[in-house]
């Protein structure tokens, strides 16, 4: 008869102790990341390479440095959420090193070793960095002009009947066309391949920005205008201080789409016409069958793209801080 209450009494503490054991094994996880990297360093250093690869010692040193940094991070309690990723990355790099540098499982030269990739950065960093700067310069100019023009065109489409009458058919004709299709023509018509690429990148970014700005402004609650108008607001205030802020969430959707479109345009333009930048570097590397260089350029390019995306997300989070919630990048 008394068994039931007793078991309840025992259940309580037992359940409460469960969350205590779980953190204790979770809290060990950050401490595992550093050793994994250090083991990767030892394997890289001690296990003889299958061929004469460059920079093996440097790679081992980098793994070791990574391991020490991770241990420090664990000690400072800065690693908890990222620990599984740090471990997976260490295991992955070690596996790659063993599979390719030590055992040479996959055919060279299409599949390189971590050393090969590292060697590109060691020997060719100047050219890679230069290419990155050229790509960035091209992209920033094209994208910025495209976005600004896109917003202006979108506002015009949303607010002015006459502007819409003349511009909308043009947009319908050339907007959906992939800007890449215009590349041969642009290189013929515009003497500078750089200016031609920038123009096409502006077009690539401008189209989605214009359409989404337009749709954002068309969707503004007319009551917002009434509120300002009863206090004496005129056209300028209504556009800049009412319509544009109200349309900002939509405009940012367009800015994200435009950024993706201008990445694509950038790479194609650099591969086909512009004689600099990461796309050109990649093209060049392929011509010389320098596959590690291609991987390195790809890595730099993806870091550049994700960096710019992150920057745009930061800007959006700041500008739209009045919104209840937003997607986190």
């Amino acid at each position, binding site marked *: 008869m008394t068994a039931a209450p007793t078991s309840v009494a025992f259940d309580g503490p037992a359940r409460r102790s469960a969350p205590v054991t779980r953190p204790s094994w979770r809290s060990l996880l950050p401490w595992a990341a550093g050793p994994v990297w250090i083991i990767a360093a030892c394997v890289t250093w001690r296990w003889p390479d299958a061929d004469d690869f460059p920079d093996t010692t440097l790679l081992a040193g980098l793994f070791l440095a990574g391991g020490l940094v991770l241990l420090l991070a664990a000690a400072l309690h800065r690693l908890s959420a990222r620990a599984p990723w740090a471990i997976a990355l260490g295991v992955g790099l070690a596996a790659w090193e063993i599979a390719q540098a030590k055992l040479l499982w996959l055919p060279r030269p299409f599949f390189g070793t971590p050393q090969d990739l590292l060697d590109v950065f060691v020997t060719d960093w100047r050219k890679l960095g230069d290419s990155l700067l050229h790509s960035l310069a091209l992209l920033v100019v094209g994208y910025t002009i495209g976005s600004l023009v896109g917003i202006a065109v979108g506002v015009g489409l949303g607010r002015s009947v006459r502007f819409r009458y003349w511009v909308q058919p043009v947009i319908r004709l050339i907007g959906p066309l992939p800007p890449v299709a215009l590349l041969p023509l642009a290189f013929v018509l515009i003497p500078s391949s750089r200016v031609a690429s920038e123009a096409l990148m502006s077009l690539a970014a401008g189209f989605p920005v214009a359409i989404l700005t337009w749709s954002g402004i068309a969707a503004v*609650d007319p*009551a*917002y205008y*009434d*509120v*300002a*108008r*009863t*206090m*004496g*607001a005129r056209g300028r*205030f209504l556009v800049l*201080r*009412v319509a544009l*802020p*109200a349309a*900002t969430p939509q405009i940012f959707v367009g800015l994200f789409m435009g950024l993706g479109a201008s990445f694509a345009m950038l790479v194609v333009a650099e591969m086909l016409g512009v004689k600099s930048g990461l796309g050109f570097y990649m093209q060049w590397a392929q011509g010389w069958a320098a596959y590690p260089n291609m991987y390195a350029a790809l890595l730099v390019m993806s870091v550049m793209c994700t960096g710019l995306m992150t920057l745009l997300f930061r800007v959006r989070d700041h500008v739209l801080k*009045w*919104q*209840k919630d937003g997607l986190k990048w």
Partner: protein
Amino acid sequence: MVSKTTTVPLGLRVEGLNHGYMIGGTYTSVLENIDLTVAPGEFVALLGPSGCGKSTLLRLVAGLEPPRSGRMFADETPITGPGPDRIVMFQDPTLYPWRTVRRNVALGHDIAGRPNDAVISDAIALVGLSGFENAWPHQLSGGMAQRVALARALVNDPRLLILDEPLGKLDSLTRLTMQTELSRLWRDRGFTALMVTHDVEEALLLASRVIVFSPRPARVIADLPITLPPHRHRDDPRLLGLRKDILMQLGHSEDW
């Protein structure tokens, strides 16, 4: 509280006003032959069944839409568009979600290019929202948003204040406080007020004149001057008598 500025109240005259909308392909008449004169400094309450056209009349008087026919004058000047001497507080608060409470209240000052922080703070305090200056509109309750909208209208120092159910979303206690504040503001500042309300008692407590509209299309069916003293009590037998009359005009007879 809000500094005692003496406002020159606006007189309003409406003659033979007609308006309507195309709804589903057919023309629906909303206002029919409205004649109305509001003397400077009056507080006129408009009562009428839902959907009869009260908000429409306020929009026309504010100059937000041109009427189909008829003439409207503000102090003998024809009304052709909105003007900052006629400020509307809309039925929905419609705060700008991208502005904080404080920036929303400052909207009129931004438009006029005349910032005045003290006036903004006073107006926010007046509607009991001190401490919420930096809140975003989505963080407010419906009643708080409505009070922000009231503050946003008041800071413009209107000569004619047009109120569309200004206290409709408030709980009964806040509503009592705000009624007192509105009445005091009107007496202190001396603007003309035109207020739509569904609450007969509110109309009788605040207004110097009550106008009753028929169901759509709206026509004036009663125009009653309220000659009660300024500090009114809701249990005043004269007020209760008037209340019964007005409810009868609105179509409720015995059950009230």
